């Protein structure tokens, strides 16, 4: 070590926290040879001791307690001020989530209620099947079973209607064979389809249709009709599929043509009302006389 090295490291050598002991020994060894460096070492050592003494006097120095109190108070206020908005924000977020959850739960509940109530509502809105054929039989020999078989409810399925249609057709055919010219088709209201395949399913259409049917039935209840008399023009059973009942006015002599009696007070030119069953081919297949 020379004087230049000694000078550049002197403050580290004399420092109490000097870590490099080797360098310290080298410096001391150099100071042993060099008077100037020995004096310099002495000056630096004295300065270090003075500074340490001064530092020790300040070791006890601390900020007053009021500073800590003021700072703790400020910290509490700051924490409260920052925590309060956080709390409110968290509360708002929680409420927002809860409200969405409540809306979702309400929606689910409403959906379930609708699903559970749907069958009841459907049942409540459905119109009871109208009693289409309810005329009392004119002929006492007519069994009431025929009326039941010709009832066509709006709620009936097409298969049921077809089955019923088949039964009616077979009945007509059987009666034609048993009583030629006197097969009895009974109690269809005027203008109504004998075998109406266009049955309304439900709703307002069914309701209005049911009301019309009931009105017609009420009207027809006051009428007195004969049994249906086959006209023998419909050999094919399919012609009955789309059969229509049409109210017509015929000369009173038409009663004689079907072997029916005429009232004593009959005069020439009198007319009589009749219901004619017109098949899908447009050909009348049966007739009955009204009043």
């Amino acid at each position, binding site marked *: 070590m*020379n*004087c*230049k090295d*000694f*000078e*550049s490291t*002197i*403050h580290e050598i004399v*420092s109490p*926290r000097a870590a490099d002991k080797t360098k310290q020994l080298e410096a001391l060894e*150099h100071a042993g*040879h*060099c008077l*100037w*460096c020995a*004096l*310099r070492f*002495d*000056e*630096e050592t004295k*300065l*270090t001791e*003075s*500074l340490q*003494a*001064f*530092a020790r*006097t*300040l*070791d*006890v*120095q*601390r*900020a*007053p307690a009021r*500073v*800590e109190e*003021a*700072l*703790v108070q*400020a*910290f*509490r206020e*700051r*924490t409260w001020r*920052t*925590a309060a908005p956080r709390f409110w924000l968290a509360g708002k977020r929680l409420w927002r989530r809860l409200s969405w959850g409540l809306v979702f739960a309400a929606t689910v509940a409403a959906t379930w209620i609708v699903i559970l109530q749907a069958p009841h509502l459907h049942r409540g809105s459905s119109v009871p099947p109208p009693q289409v054929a309810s005329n009392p039989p004119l002929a006492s020999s007519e069994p009431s079973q025929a009326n039941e078989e010709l009832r066509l409810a709006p709620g009936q399925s097409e298969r049921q209607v077809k089955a019923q249609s088949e039964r009616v057709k077979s009945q007509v055919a059987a009666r034609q064979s048993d009583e030629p010219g006197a097969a009895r088709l009974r109690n269809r209201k005027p203008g109504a389809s004998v075998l109406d395949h266009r049955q309304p399913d439900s709703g307002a259409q069914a309701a209005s249709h049911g009301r019309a049917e009931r009105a017609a039935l009420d009207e027809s209840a006051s009428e007195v009709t004969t049994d249906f008399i086959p006209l023998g023009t419909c050999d094919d059973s399919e012609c009955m599929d789309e059969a229509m009942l049409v109210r017509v006015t015929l000369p009173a002599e038409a009663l004689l043509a079907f072997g029916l009696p005429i009232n004593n007070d009959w005069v020439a030119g009198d007319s009589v009302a009749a219901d004619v069953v017109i098949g899908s081919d447009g050909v009348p297949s049966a007739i009955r006389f009204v009043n």
Partner: protein
Amino acid sequence: MAGLTEIRDEQLLRMMQGGDEDAFTTLYRRRQGGIYRFVLEMSGSTALAEDVTQEVFMALIRDNRGYDPSRGPLGAYLLGMARHHALRLLKRDRTYVSIEEGSRDGRDLTPFSSEDPHWAMSRQQSIQTVQQAILSLPEHYREAVVLCDLNEVSYEDAASVLGCSVGTVRSRLHRGRALLIQKLAGGKKVEAGSKAIDPSRCLA
């Protein structure tokens, strides 16, 4: 609270950020002495030291996210803040302490001792002389001396506090000590010191 004293500063700061008052108190008690003494040694004013200490920790309370651990320890960061506040207040007041004025607020910083009165007085005078010599140093030398010699801060941390390189710290410290020796020698040029900075004096 007892367990908190063993926790590192950075961990205490994180706990403090979470609103832990005990962590803040622990950190304050651990670091306030160094900050207070640093400002007191730099300015010689207990009032200024008190103000700066309070401002440093108030700033930590207000904005405790300004500390970057990668740039040094929290102690150095707090000392850097204290230095910044102290220099700002000193420049604002423009009342630098001269070596004749003593401590700025008239308070004697060195406590009386119960030792031999003559020795104590001599020692007291010696300490006051050192204090006045330190206060008379230019700021950048004073900072280096106060940090490295009085507070035994490492060169690396001192460089972090002062915002300069370690070499600059060493240089400022060397020059500051030389000035102190000169001032303590009564203003006369110290012969040994003057020759000490002459590298040609010895090539051995």
